[in-house]
C-alpha cells in the first residue's frame, strides 16, 4: 500500500478516536506531551510519527495499537464502477426521475453565498 495513504488512514483513526472521546487536540497534547501542531500533522497524515510518539498519543486516549489497525481497502475496477453507474442510472430512470437539475443546484449554491461564476460559464459553454 502507498505509504502516504497508510499514514493518512492511521491519522484518521487517531482523530476519530479523539473525537469520539470528545477530546480536543489541546487535551491530548497536555496528556501526551506531544505538541498540538505535531498532533494535527499526525492526524492529517502529513508526517511519519515515531513508534514511541504513537504509543504516547494512544496512552493519552486510553487506547492501544489495536485501535489504529488499518482495515484492508475496498478496491473495484473501472469496469465494475461503470457497471454500477449504469445500474444506478437505470433505477433512477425507472423511478421516473430525470437527470439532476443543474440550474436548480447552481441557484441553490448562489443562495447559500457560493461563487458559481466559473461553473455557470462551463455549463453555458456546454
Amino acid at each position, binding site marked *: 500500500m502507498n505509504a502516504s495513504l497508510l499514514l493518512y488512514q492511521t491519522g484518521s483513526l487517531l482523530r476519530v478516536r479523539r473525537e469520539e472521546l470528545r477530546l480536543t487536540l489541546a487535551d491530548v497534547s497536555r496528556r501526551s506531551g506531544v505538541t498540538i501542531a505535531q498532533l494535527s500533522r499526525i492526524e*492529517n497524515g502529513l508526517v511519519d510519527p515515531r513508534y514511541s510518539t504513537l504509543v504516547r498519543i494512544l496512552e493519552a486516549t486510553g487506547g492501544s495499537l489495536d485501535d489504529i489497525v488499518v482495515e484492508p481497502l475496498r478496491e473495484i475496477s473501472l469496469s465494475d464502477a461503470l457497471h454500477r453507474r449504469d445500474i444506478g442510472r437505470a*433505477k433512477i430512470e425507472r423511478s421516473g426521475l430525470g437527470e439532476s437539475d443543474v440550474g436548480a443546484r447552481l441557484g441553490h449554491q448562489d443562495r447559500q453565498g457560493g461563487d*458559481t461564476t466559473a461553473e455557470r460559464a*462551463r455549463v453555458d459553454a456546454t
Partner: protein
Amino acid sequence: MNQPGLRELEAAEREHDPMVRRLWLVAAIQAIVPRPIFLVGGSAVDLHTGSYRPTDIDIVGAVGSADRVALIEVGFVESGGHHLKWVFSDGSNELVEFPESHLDGTFERIALSEDIAINVITVESLIVDRINQATDGTSVTFDEAVRLVIAVGDRADWAAIAADLASRPEAIYLGSIRWARDVLLGAGMGHVGEVHFRE
C-alpha cells in the same frame, strides 16, 4: 514523459466518457500532489447515479499553494471561485476545486489501470453527506439525496450509515435521522428506515 501526472493527463485526453475523463484528471492530480487526495461531491455521486451532471470535480486533501503551482506547471489554469481548470484539445474543460483538507468519512479505491488507482468517498459516506445537506430543508438537496438513495439503496451498508450519523454531534444527528427517514420514504425505501433509524 517522466513528469508526474502526464501519463494520466494523456489518458484523460484519449477518453470520451466524461466521467472516466474526470477520474483520470483526479489520477493526474494525485500523481502531482504528494499526499492522499479523495474524490467527493457531485462527481462522486455521478459515479453511482450516472445522471448528476457535475459542474466541477471536488477533491479533498491537504493541497497547498505549492501543489497548485505544480498543477499550473503541467497545464491547469486558475479559473475564479478557487477553481482550477483543465482544457482538453477538443475545447471542453473540467473545473477542479479543493474544498476541504481532509475527508469526512470513509473511502474506497477505483483501479483505472493495473498500477493506477484513485481514492473515492464511499457511497455510505456520500449518503451521510447528502442527508446532512438535505437538512437545509430545500427541495433541491432533498431531491438529490432521494436520487442517490434510489440508485444505491439496495447495496449500501445502512447499518454503517446509521452508525455514522449517530456518531455526529447530537443536533445534527437527530436532524439527520429525521431527514434520513424522509429521504428513504421519498425513495420508496421506508422499510430500511424502520430497521436502521430509530430515535
